[in-house]
């Protein structure tokens, strides 16, 4: 399956051979084929973040210009992490290679490469662990499944640890809950110790560290984006909303992934947030410093995750808000739900979130003090606080893509569905093996969403696209709704490739479309500027 042309065709990509190769996997081998890997980190970004061994190198080069004691650094790093993470030690020790995880990985399904079976991806590290950290491996070596850490092994790590989107689907099926995300997160940490990282992660992290967001948007640019959105919303609804930035004393700090105010189709959901908060009169503010909820640090190292996440609580404290609401984003919510309080808490300067409209106290966030906007909105709808006209979304036949992290690291499954059923009339689920905790990744998560990696992303996104195609063909679905910024950035291209005719949107885009605001003008268009159902004629006249 070599791809000579620049843009592969779907029929070429689905010619997948699942027969493992002759060559034993223990014999390290990796081919950096264009379209299947990511470029190295920009030295400037590394320098800004104070990362070690800053240099110019590329994966395709023979010499990666590693420091002379690279092996020692990595093995010491591994030892340290085995002592620091029970997860790692357990996951290194107890895998029985039952193979249940093998065909659960979207990269394996889409590529047929045996080293993309989660079990084997982990074995790439596990074999080194056995060789250097277990008695049997030290004595018996290869007979005990041990492998010497060599440069080819290191290159294999790089290739395959960046062919995992840390979506955790394998972990759902593993009888011991072995989580490949944990293994690749730590594997990437080890690589970063010797200055091996990818630019799509390191540069956004550097941007975020400096300006407050991954895109590197500076404070005035952020303010402009918000004001621009307010103007757009006024054009559509006739209502002037007045969002504030860095305003002290607001009740709520609202944090969104930066793509929400810059990306398409994220932006339409951003309009939805503004409309919703205005309508219920929420006393909230944005922060131009904490202008990023996403966290590419998660894809770099635990340390970087903590460094980038710190600003959220710091800003909540400085601005004196009572609690925090977070927008639609997948891995952002993994960090907020499972790491933030531990890393940068306790948030004892905040109050347990309480909806000012319904009085609902969000006990599920009583320590972290941050709630997901889907939880907030579902509560509003349940208490009938919103006037909704789902017919305005009648042009869409909708399916919902559970984003990996809200599904498998939170269990935020019903809230978005409840909202959807209230804001649209045509909602169809994808097959059960492809939704909820079994959802398939977009194939571009965890910092892999680059153009240079396009073929691998299309392969990794194939299982998701395949399920969308099912509802597209059977129910005429034409809109894939999701609650993740990376989904919104990458699924449109994936759909164009695999399932033309399906566009991608956010949950709060539909909420905003359906929301009947007090004093609004008669709306002709939805947030995308396309005519609402029944308004097509009027536009053409």
């Amino acid at each position, binding site marked *: 399956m070599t791809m000579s042309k620049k843009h592969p065709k779907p029929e070429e990509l*689905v010619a997948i051979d*699942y027969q*493992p190769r002759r060559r034993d*996997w223990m014999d390290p081998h990796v081919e950096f084929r264009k379209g299947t890997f990511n470029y190295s980190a920009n030295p400037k970004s590394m320098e800004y973040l104070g990362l070690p061994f800053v240099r110019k190198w590329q994966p395709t080069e023979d010499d990666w210009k590693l420091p002379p004691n690279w092996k020692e650094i990595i093995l010491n790093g591994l030892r340290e992490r085995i*002592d*620091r993470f029970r*997860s790692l030690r*357990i996951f290194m*020790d*107890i895998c*029985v*290679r*039952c*193979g*249940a995880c*093998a*065909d659960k990985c979207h990269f394996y399904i889409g590529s047929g490469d*045996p080293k993309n079976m989660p079990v084997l991806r982990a074995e790439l590290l596990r074999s080194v662990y056995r060789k250097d950290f277990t008695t049997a491996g030290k004595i018996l070596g290869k*007979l005990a*499944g041990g492998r010497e850490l060599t440069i080819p092994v290191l290159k294999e790590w790089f290739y395959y640890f960046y062919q995992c989107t840390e979506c*955790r689907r394998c*972990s*759902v099926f593993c*009888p*011991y*809950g*072995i*989580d490949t995300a*944990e293994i690749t997160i730590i594997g990437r940490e080890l690589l970063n110790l010797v200055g091996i990282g990818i630019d799509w992660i390191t540069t956004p992290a550097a941007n975020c560290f400096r300006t407050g967001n991954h895109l590197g948007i*500076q404070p*005035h640019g952020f303010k*402009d984006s918000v004001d621009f959105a307010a103007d757009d919303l006024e054009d559509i609804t006739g209502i002037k909303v007045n969002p504030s*930035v*860095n305003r002290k004393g607001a009740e709520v700090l609202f944090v969104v992934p930066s793509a929400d105010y810059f990306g398409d189709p994220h932006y339409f959901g951003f309009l939805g947030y503004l409309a919703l908060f205005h309508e219920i009169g929420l006393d909230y503010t944005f922060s131009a*410093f904490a202008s990023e909820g996403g966290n590419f640090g998660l894809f770099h190292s635990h*340390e970087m995750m903590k*460094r980038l996440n710190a*600003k959220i609580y*710091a*800003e909540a404290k*400085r601005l004196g808000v009572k609690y925090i609401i977070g927008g639609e984003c997948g891995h952002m919510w993994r960090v907020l739900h*499972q*790491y933030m309080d*531990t890393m940068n808490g306790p948030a004892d300067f905040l109050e347990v979130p309480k909806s000012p409209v319904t009085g609902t106290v969000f006990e*599920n966030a*009583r320590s972290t003090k941050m709630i997901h906007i889907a*939880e907030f909105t579902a*509560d509003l709808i*349940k208490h009938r606080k919103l006037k909704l006209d789902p017919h305005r979304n009648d042009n869409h036949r909708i399916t919902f893509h559970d984003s990996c992290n809200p*599904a*498998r690291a*939170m*269990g935020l*499954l*019903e809230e978005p569905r*409840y909202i959807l059923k209230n804001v649209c009339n045509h909602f169809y689920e994808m097959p059960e093996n492809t939704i*909820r*905790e*079994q959802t398939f990744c977009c194939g571009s998560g965890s910092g892999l969403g680059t153009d240079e990696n396009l073929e691998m992303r299309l392969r990794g996104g194939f299982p998701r696209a*395949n399920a969308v195609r099912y509802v597209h063909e059977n129910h005429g679905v034409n809109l894939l709704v999701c609650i993740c910024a990376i989904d919104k950035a990458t699924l449109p291209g994936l759909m164009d490739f695999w399932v033309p005719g399906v566009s991608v949107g956010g949950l709060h885009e539909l909420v905003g479309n359906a929301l009947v605001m007090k004093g609004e003008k008669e709306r002709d268009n939805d947030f995308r500027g396309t005519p609402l159902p029944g308004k097509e004629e009027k536009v053409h006249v």
Partner: protein
Amino acid sequence: MKILYSLLAVSISIAFAWVGTASGGLHYLFGVVFPAVAVFLFLFGIVYRVVRWARSPVPFHITTTCGQQKSLDWIKSSPLDNPSSTLGVIGRMALEVFFFRSLFRNTKMELKNGGKLVYGSAKYLWLAGLVFHWSFLIIVLRHFRFFLEPTPVFVGVLQNLDGFFQVGVPVLFMSDILILGALSFLFFRRIVTPQLRYISLISDYFPLLLIIAIAATGVLMRYFLKTDLVAVKQLMLGLFSVSPIVPEAISPLFYIHLFLVSVLLAYFPASKLVHMAGIFLSPTRNLSNNSRMKRHINPWNAPVKVHTYEEWEDEFRELIKGAGIPLEKE
């Protein structure tokens, strides 16, 4: 090759015990010394492994959630697949340990012509795994009739249940048939499925073949080549009361069986078989999904270099001012 090595290791073990007891006269070595050493290695090894695991902290709360979270009152949560309480976690772990809940989800992906993916039910691995583990447990418990005098009541109950169909003399135990069937399935599955053969190591084939050999020698002794059970019980009681005696009349087949069990016990803690203990400590399964309700503490929560608001304001002061965003310092 890997299968061959494993087969060789098991064969050598059998030959060793056979030669040693049939013509070597090493009954004391195989009947007392090896089993005692093996039991010690097993206990010490398991404790060592568990202590080592337990000494590595759980820095982050990384539950894998497999159902609806507990959030709003009116949304039904999944207390077992996404537990928010300790009781829920106990339930989740019980389902995992006793019924292999996660493996029950297993599916098989197929790529159909025309590039369509379909996912079929694939319960055989779950079924064979469950049958093997339960049969193994029942067989181990049944063996307590050799270890304790008087024979505990539960052994009698188990024997009656296990021999429920009253077939043959001595009564055929279902667990004997089931364990051999399940193990054979698990073994051939590894060989027949190309992907599985590709990932399998010696340490995957060896324990399977070893346990097959243990079960086979046990079945041989019970149904075909009878051994002197009174003598066997004498030996085992002696072992367990730490006053070993080696009766004369026991056949080499028994010593082969006992030696294979000794190998299994000694090998156990150093192998993947420690999943038996490890599953209880797996952080994606044994933590409740309450990380926003209750702060999880990381004992080594290391300080990191952060970018402070003040530094940010200093760098962008003019731009912030120009945009009309409030400043801390004018």
